[in-house]
């Protein structure tokens, strides 16, 4: 059996997983996958997180991707990272940089097996802050400066590709090179608050081709988290495994211990269990009905007659789900145009909404115009 088929049938333990440590966040990005903002009072305690990390050590999970929310908001953040790395679990964590000052940067620079990803969605404050919020560009650049000054080494600049920053890809690469950093670009998903932002933010059909060509010409020098495999229908495959690993080789643990198939499907339909259940994470991973069904051979459905299916695998499950498309049909960004046709047939308001929302309440008291200085 080819390797990819074995991976699709699932492994006894995930290769890696994403762990959102908190729903608390100082920002309110319009495309936030986890609709973060407010801390959930039922958040896993320090001891609970450590117990799951011990389980992951026993399962020989090599590394975890920590996110949120803003993970550095947790007071026990460094304690948890230390516990992971001391147990042979590498940590890659995503941050907006707000809490990454010179002292934290020095602390991180002294640690092994820790990768830092600073999120940046625009090469200038106007482009970035329109998505990530006012002041977030300056915050991110300050954190990058701090890491560089501390001699952290090659940190990562993590960009979600949108309609408005596609033309900045060369600039992002140059910025990463200037910092001695590594560029990571990922696909915009219509998940979390992204459900509302996606229709006007996702790259156009022409831009999909532009992204594909850019990624192909940069090869493995740019990280993608294997998130653009829907573009492989355009020709030569991009580097990566070219498969959806949800519930098969990856999954998500959310701040309250709920386990979902992947970071992009925080929805009851893709909820596999909770690490607090008896049997813990291992039981959820191995025995949940949802994960077992995802490891069964999947039908190509409406894509079966398309010659590109082997290349694109029908695209991303989460992108289909949250745009109201059937899971066994084309991706909404299908490069052969089948997605656009399918989207036209989705009745307005019929697409599923995220079942979990920790967005901060809208501040009605926010002033609408600058107050003149006295």
């Amino acid at each position, binding site marked *: *059996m080819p*390797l990819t088929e074995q991976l699709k049938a699932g492994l*006894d333990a995930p290769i890696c997983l994403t762990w959102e440590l908190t729903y608390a966040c100082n920002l309110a990005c319009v495309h936030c996958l986890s609709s973060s903002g407010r801390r959930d009072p039922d958040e896993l305690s320090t001891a609970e997180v450590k117990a799951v990390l011990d389980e992951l050590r026993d399962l020989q999970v*090599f590394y975890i991707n920590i996110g949120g929310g803003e993970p550095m908001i947790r007071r026990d953040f460094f304690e948890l990272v230390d516990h992971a790395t001391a147990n*042979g679990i*590498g940590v890659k964590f995503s941050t907006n940089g707000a809490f990454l000052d010179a002292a934290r940067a020095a602390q991180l620079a002294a640690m092994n097996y820790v990768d830092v990803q600073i999120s940046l969605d625009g090469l200038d404050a106007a482009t970035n802050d329109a998505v990530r919020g006012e002041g977030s560009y300056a915050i991110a650049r300050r954190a990058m400066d701090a890491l560089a000054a501390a001699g952290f080494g090659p940190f990562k600049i993590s960009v979600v590709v949108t309609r408005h920053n596609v033309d900045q890809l060369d600039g992002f690469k140059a910025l990463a090179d200037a910092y001695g950093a590594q560029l990571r670009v990922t696909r915009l998903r219509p998940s979390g608050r992204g459900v509302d932002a996606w229709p006007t933010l996702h790259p156009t059909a022409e831009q999909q081709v532009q992204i594909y060509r850019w990624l192909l010409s940069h090869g493995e020098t740019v990280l993608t988290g294997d998130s653009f495999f829907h573009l492989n229908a355009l020709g030569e495959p991009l580097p990566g495994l070219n498969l959806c690993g949800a519930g098969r080789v990856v999954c998500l643990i959310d701040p309250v211990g709920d386990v979902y198939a992947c970071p992009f499907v925080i929805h009851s339909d893709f909820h596999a269990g909770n690490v607090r259940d008896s049997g813990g994470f291992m039981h959820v991973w191995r025995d949940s009905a949802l994960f077992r069904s995802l490891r069964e051979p999947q039908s190509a459905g409406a894509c079966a007659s398309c010659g590109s299916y082997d290349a694109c695998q029908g695209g991303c499950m989460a992108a289909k789900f949250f745009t109201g498309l059937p899971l066994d049909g084309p991706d909404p960004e299908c490069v052969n145009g089948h997605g656009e046709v399918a989207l036209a047939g989705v009745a307005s308001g019929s697409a599923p909404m995220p079942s979990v929302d920790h967005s901060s309440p809208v501040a009605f008291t926010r002033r609408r115009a600058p107050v003149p200085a006295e």
Partner: protein
Amino acid sequence: MAVELDGAYELHPDVALRPEPFGALAYHYGNRRLVFLKHRDVVSVVRALGDRSTVAESLRSCGVDEHRWPSFVAALTSLESAGVVRARDAAH
């Protein structure tokens, strides 16, 4: 550069192997690369390298027929370029 049959090699100390039905997953904590070892015999040979004086001896100790050696040399060469195995000091 191709791995030499009479050379001495070892599993890189920063690499962890996780057994899988298809062979093993190898993760390099230094360069953060994940590599798939797609055959159980390759996994056995990789594990044997450090205890044997040469690649040829490792292959023999794992019962690998000589006609299969070229494919193992190719596999070990790609593993060396990924940093999963490395040349060992001959005096070791």
